[in-house]
Each structure stands twice: as C-alpha cells, then as structure tokens.
C-alpha cells in the first residue's frame, strides 16, 4: 500500500499563487466575496502563508504554501463525533461531506488551519458552471472541507492502470498544485517507496515538517536552508 506524500521546496517557491488557482479550479472551490474575506471565510485548500522577517528597510518576505498536511496522526479525526473525517488505508485524511454535521471540532483541532467551513451555499456565475469539475462534488452549506491531495485523480489513475493491466507509477497520480507549480518547487509520490523522488528529497538536510513537536507526523515535508532547518528526523 503506497503512502502518498508531498515535498515543497521553500527555497524555490516564488509565492506566485499558481498552485492556489489550480487547486481552486480543480476542486470547485467557490470564489469568495469581499465581505466573506473580511470575516475570514475564504476557502482555500492550499494557502500561501506570507511570513514577514526582519525590519524596514530590509524586510524579508517568505512564503509557505500550506495544503492539508495529511498527518499520520491527525488531531482532526480524533475529535470528529461522526466519523466524517478519518485516516484511510493509504494515509490520506478523508472528508465525507455527506456524513459531516458541521460541528467544526475538526476545524478547531487542526493546528495548521487546513480545514474550512462552508458558511454559505457555494455559488458560481452562470458562465462558470460548465467549468466545474464533475469528478469533485459541490459541497453544500454547513460542512467542513479541505485538501484531499486531489484524491479523485488517484481514483481515475487506478482505473486507468487497471484497464491497461499494469501497476500504478508515481507519474500516474499528481495533484493539480504539483502539476501546475511553474517553479518546480513541489514534488509528489509514494513515501514508502525508497526510490521515489519524494523519499529521496526527505533525506535532504534541508527537510523539516511543520510543528514537528506536536507529533502529528505530517506527510507534507518542506525543504529550506532557513532556520526551520533540520527539524525532520526519520
């Protein structure tokens, strides 16, 4: 059974937001209005979190792209009272919208703020409706959603390789953000395969994981020369 993981090289990331746009289009994420944004209700499965360092006149801006980190010990699933969010056999943290009762415990429990609540029913301009992705459902008002590592792409890939009678390879399944990244800062693959690109990357001395001390064991691993350096031991 593969264990899907992502590596994001922060030294390559330019903060261009292409991953954010790709994600929103791929996953039918509604545009938010200025009013919703004001209330902090914008949904963005992957978010570029800007981190300001230093002081004027030499400020330094760093960017941290943050999808759902698909923790191996996810705090969110422990608080769900209805099994709407759980860790699946391939290590992905699933979110079953039809099961969700909208209590938002998981949203509060996630230390990475990766979960989003639908405060209103999603709407799109009529012209935009044909652009919606039929492989991803439109989430109704009152449920929590988050990045799925584009799980629907995995489903399609599995079906394709089965029809072609071969094994799934790393190239068969790539989330939209990784596919789009123009800086080549994102990698995706099987962390259990010692030869995969992602596994190789995690051996880098630049590798670290967010809030390592919490013991959540995220499957998104970051790379940087910066001060986070060295926090990932495995």
């Amino acid at each position, binding site marked *: 059974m593969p264990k899907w993981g992502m590596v994001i090289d922060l030294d390559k990331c330019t903060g261009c937001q292409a991953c954010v746009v790709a994600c929103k289009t791929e996953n039918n994420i509604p545009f938010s209005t200025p009013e919703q944004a004001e209330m902090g209700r914008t949904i963005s499965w992957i978010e570029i979190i800007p981190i300001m360092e230093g002081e004027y006149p030499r400020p330094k801006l760093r960017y941290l792209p943050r999808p759902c980190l698909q923790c191996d010990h996810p705090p969110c699933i422990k608080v769900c009272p209805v099994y709407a969010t759980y860790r699946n056999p391939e290590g992905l943290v699933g979110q079953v919208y039809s099961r969700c009762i909208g209590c938002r415990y998981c949203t509060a429990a996630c230390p990475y703020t990766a979960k989003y609540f639908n405060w209103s029913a999603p709407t799109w301009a009529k012209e935009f409706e044909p652009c919606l992705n039929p492989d991803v459902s439109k989430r109704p008002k009152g449920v929590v959603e988050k990045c799925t590592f584009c799980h629907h792409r995995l489903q399609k890939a599995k*079906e394709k390789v089965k029809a072609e009678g071969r094994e799934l390879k790393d190239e068969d399944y790539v989330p939209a953000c990784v596919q789009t990244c123009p800086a080549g800062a994102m990698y995706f693959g099987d962390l259990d395969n010692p030869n995969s690109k992602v596994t190789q990357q995690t051996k880098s001395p630049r590798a670290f994981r967010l809030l390592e001390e919490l013991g959540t064991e995220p499957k998104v691993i970051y790379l940087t020369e910066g001060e986070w350096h060295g926090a990932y031991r495995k």
Partner: protein
Amino acid sequence: MQANKFRIIGLVLVAGLLAFTWLRIGLSKSTEIRQPIRFNHKKHVQGGLECSGCHQTVKDQATAGRPETSLCMTCHEASVTKNPEENLIREYAQRHEEIPWQRVIKLPDHVFFSHRRHVSTEKLDCTSCHEAIGQSSEPPSRPIKFSMDSCLACHQKMKASVDCVACHK
C-alpha cells in the same frame, strides 16, 4: 364542553388525513418518470442486441450513455412493427433531434461511480446491478434507487474497497 373537544379532535384528524393523501398523490406524481417513447428492452435484447451496442460508452467511460436517434434509425428507418410508438422515432429523426430520455437511475452528486471500473476491468455482468431492466417490456415508471448497502455488500463479498472516499467525492 366535552362534545366540543371531541369535535375539535375529529376535525384535526380529518384535516390531517386530507393533507396526508394530498401529499401522497403529489409526491408520487413528482417522482413518476414518463419516457418520450415506450421503449421495450425485452424485445430488443431478445432480438440478440448486446447491452453495450446501445449503451456504447459503458466499457470505457464512467457513464454508460444512451443511444443516439440515428442508431435507432438504422433499424427503424421503415416500420418493423405496427406499434405507433415507433413512428415517434422517425418524427424525432426528421426534426434532427435527440430523443429526450429521462434518467431512471441517478446517484447523488457526492457519489463517484464508474462503469468502466466495474464492467471492463472486473467483467461484471450488467445483470449483477441492473437485474430487471433488460427483461422489462416497459420503461421503469419510477426512479431506481441504489443504496449504499447494496454497493458495500458486493464490495465486501468481492474484496473491493470499502474506503469512504473511494465512493464519496
């Protein structure tokens, strides 16, 4: 006093009963499906037609697909029966219209189902899921439901995935 009480209870009961029947009729009307042509699966299948001859994308796509009017016309260019329903096909064809077939089976938006996965790679027979339709001489008049339990029962039996996000998208 007592008599009044009974009268009120009686009135409420009658009103309730009326509302109930009215709702029942209303509901059953709204779920009834009327196909534009009374298509007879049994006759066509007994005639030796393959299911995938009309539902042409069933082996390589998620949806099975419905036949185009032009496909019906390959046999129905001229009358083969005395059934007036048959003329309707030619009327649609003359107007260059597709026959507006209604959906009988429709999973909710949040469920992912692919025929290709089940039919081409697992070689499941259509009848394992669509028992009756190939043998019916009338189009179904009501929506056909697939319950989650029916999916899971077979998945458990055949050792297929029972992971929630395999089916829920």
